[in-house]
């Protein structure tokens, strides 16, 4: 058999014409279509593509991890001259976790919550190196934890996953993956679920370890910034095909394929919309607190509080966008939910001089149409059993119950058109739409109620880059045509910069810094803000 690259001496992994198809209820769909790629020893390559492009399936095929789920698999995968397609289980088990290992996107679910991290790392060693003595294993575990920079490794190794932060968990995952000095590390979106500062640290760690251990890394991501920073060569995937392949610098400077160009162009840019700064605020928030009681003892008395939001003040004017920035757990979502009384809060929230926190749910109802909320994940925020028309009608039925049927229909059609959807889509179900379209539906659902204020909770972070760009453009358009005020909650500094006039930086429930977006980004005063912005700059070259 003559393969294109196997003559090359240092080729570690050679995937040749790999096709993978799945069968769901009788329909066979090809997810990966005749894909070929290779990885040299000690090289970092990236597989880039939007969700559903087949990049994860390609990676999982290397490990042959999804063999029982797939319908057919064609082509060859050579790892160090060993054919992996249809290899027997024993060979595969030897390779998995030994010479090839993998880290996953979600460190929360990839570690077993019932075992200590020490035990989970040791398991990898014992499985692949049965001759190691107990002392050697212990020593190696400690060494690995130190290698991935877990502070106080000696004490920490007895911890359970829930006792660690997201970043630490991802480090433990990496330690597990490195346990047997793999030749190839497959990293599937290794930092997507993490905050910027931690993202940067993990990527730095991966780079250092790659240098030190001379292993190859196959990086699967949708984030072009990470690719640019890490990978030597890049493959671009679209709809199961590899459409572009080049060295990373070449690819970024002279993208050959239109799709690559499209991806590169979809990096957000622009300026926030202007608004009248001297107008009276329509929303005033004073000393807003969301405290969750911690109950202890038999009597369940509240002894302590988790202060999710602790004394937040801000004003919002017509047409203004306030960005709320913070890492996960900083209380920014609680803040948003408190403003619409989904989460209980103390303090004062004045909408057009009317205090709303004191209102009962019934009294609040007429105000609901004025303050609306758009959720992060458009796949979760639309009821899968309702058609688009029904989803939009639901709110109208409650809040505009005196309106005639025809008028409601007209409002729905108008809202759909204004978010760029066609009126004939009214009878379709959410699953028939893409992520971007779904987010448009979610926006239309709020818009149909003619709100003054939209609270946008990470409205773009579940979306692919190019779609993100469209949704942001849509939001800015809508803001101008309807003079909407936005409260824009995000961890993505890049998006906040082009959306928000003013910004609040939140950390552990408190506002660390607040003011004009441009000023804060150019000249952050507080240490925390500086750290945050610096990490984002390093990652994204802001």
């Amino acid at each position: 058999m003559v393969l294109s690259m196997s003559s090359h001496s240092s080729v570690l992994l050679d995937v040749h014409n790999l096709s993978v198809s799945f069968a769901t209820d009788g329909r066979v769909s090809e997810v990966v279509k005749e894909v070929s790629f290779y990885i040299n020893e000690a090289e970092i390559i990236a597989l880039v593509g939007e969700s559903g492009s087949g990049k994860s399936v390609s990676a999982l095929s290397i490990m042959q991890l999804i063999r029982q789920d797939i319908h057919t698999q064609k082509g060859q995968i050579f790892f160090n001259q060993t054919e992996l397609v249809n290899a027997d289980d024993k060979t595969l088990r030897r390779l998995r976790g030994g010479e090839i290992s993998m880290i996953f996107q979600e460190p929360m679910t990839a570690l077993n919550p019932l075992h200590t991290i020490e035990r989970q790392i040791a398991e990898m060693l014992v499985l692949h190196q049965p001759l190691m003595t107990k002392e050697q294993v212990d020593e190696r575990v400690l060494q690995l934890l130190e290698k991935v920079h877990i502070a106080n490794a000696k004490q920490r190794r007895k911890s359970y996953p829930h006792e660690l932060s997201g970043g630490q968990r991802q480090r433990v995952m990496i330690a597990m993956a490195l346990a047997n000095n793999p030749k190839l590390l497959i990293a599937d979106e290794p930092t997507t679920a993490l905050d910027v500062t931690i993202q940067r640290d993990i990527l730095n760690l991966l780079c250092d370890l790659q240098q030190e251990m001379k292993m190859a890394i196959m990086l699967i991501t949708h984030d072009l910034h990470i690719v640019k920073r890490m990978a030597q060569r890049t493959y671009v995937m679209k709809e199961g095909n590899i459409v572009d392949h080049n060295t990373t610098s070449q690819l970024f400077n002279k993208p050959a394929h239109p799709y690559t160009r499209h991806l590169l162009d979809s990096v957000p840019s622009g300026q926030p919309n202007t608004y009248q700064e001297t107008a009276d605020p329509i929303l005033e928030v004073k000393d807003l607190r969301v405290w969750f009681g911690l109950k202890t003892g038999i009597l369940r008395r509240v002894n302590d509080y988790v202060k999710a939001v602790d004394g937040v003040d801000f004003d919002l004017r017509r047409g203004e966008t306030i960005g709320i920035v913070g890492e996960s757990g900083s209380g920014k979502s609680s803040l948003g939910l408190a403003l619409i009384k989904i989460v209980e809060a103390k303090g004062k929230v004045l909408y057009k001089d009317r205090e709303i926190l004191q209102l009962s749910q019934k009294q609040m109802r007429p105000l609901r149409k004025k303050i609306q909320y758009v959720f992060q994940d458009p796949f979760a925020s639309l009821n899968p059993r309702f058609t688009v028309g029904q989803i939009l009608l639901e709110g109208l039925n409650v809040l505009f119950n005196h309106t005639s049927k025809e008028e409601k229909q007209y409002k729905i059609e108008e809202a759909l058109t204004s978010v760029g959807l066609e009126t004939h889509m009214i009878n379709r179900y959410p699953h028939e739409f893409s992520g971007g379209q779904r987010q448009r539906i979610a926006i239309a659902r709020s818009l149909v109620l003619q709100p003054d204020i939209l609270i946008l909770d990470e409205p773009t972070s579940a979306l692919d880059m190019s779609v993100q760009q469209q949704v942001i453009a849509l939001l800015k358009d809508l803001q101008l045509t309807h003079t909407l005020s936005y409260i824009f909650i995000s961890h993505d500094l890049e998006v906040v910069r082009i959306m928000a006039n003013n910004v609040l930086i939140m950390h552990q429930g408190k506002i660390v810094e607040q003011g004009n977006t441009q000023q804060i980004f150019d000249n952050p005063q507080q240490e925390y803000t500086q750290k945050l912005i610096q990490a984002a700059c390093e990652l994204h070259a802001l």
Partner: protein
Amino acid sequence: MQLSAVNKRRWSRFKLNKRGYYSLWMFVFIFLLSLFSEFIANDKPYMITLNDKHYFPMFTVYPETVFGGEFETETEYIDPYVEQLITEQGGVMYWPPIRFSYDTFSVDLGATVPSAPSATHVLGTDDFGRDVFARILYGLRLSIMFGLLLTILSTIIGVIVGACQGYFAGMVDLIGQRFIEIWTSVPSLYVLIILASLFSPGFFVLLFIMLLFSWVSLVGVVRAEFLRGRNYDYIKAVRVMGLGPLAIMFRHLLPNAMVATLTFLPFILNGAIATLSALDFLGLGLPPGSASLGELLRQGKENPNAPWLGFTSFIVISVLLSLLIFIGEAVRDAFDTNKKSAVM
């Protein structure tokens, strides 16, 4: 009615479980057959033609005098004297295949009761001389009807309680859970025995007593689905729209719980039928004389010299319960999206 794509897929997954699919047809067949018991096994003919007049004894009560007899009471059509009376006047009687109802005492058996299977009584008679086949047919209807009613009622109560517990959570859930824990630890059989001795246990009294204990079976699953569902973003989204709790629970959350509920239904039905048979077997169930599978089973126990009683009732009950279990398994498969269906 047009099935949605999801339901079409479920139906095709259901059909893939061949055992369950055929069980469903058999069950439907048996159930329909038992619904028309009166037309299959009855001690009244379908129709009598006499002197160019048509009589329908199954629907109208005719005194014997109509046919030239002496009594003002309802005609006993199986009485040889009546038969003779009608045929002598040139009348014709159209009989159902089995000329006995569940409570017809065969007087002229010419054998001691319980009598063995014969041409007239295909499955023999019980110890009162009643036709076993007729009793089985009527008994099946009673059992299935009882089971269905009990299932429907306990589903309604169970879903409502589970929905409230799951949606409101907190204190409501806590009280509900503790109550159910205490309630389920009450030995229901003894309570049934005590209650059955206080009230004369008719069909509806029995239904009510058993309902007291069977509604809990669905609460757990429905509660779990609601607890999970109340935190979905799309539920939060409709709360932001100002929807009240009732609308959210029944329009938005209930459909999620329906899958779990439907999966449970065949098993609940099964349990209801088994419990009713058990009570009848112990003599605590339906009033004496009703057609009941459990009662026939007891007769089988009491008359070991008449094995057809025991065998028939055993086979009928076990076939019925097995069919329901097979259907239940197929329903479970149908709703299980993780289960891979063969490529067609």
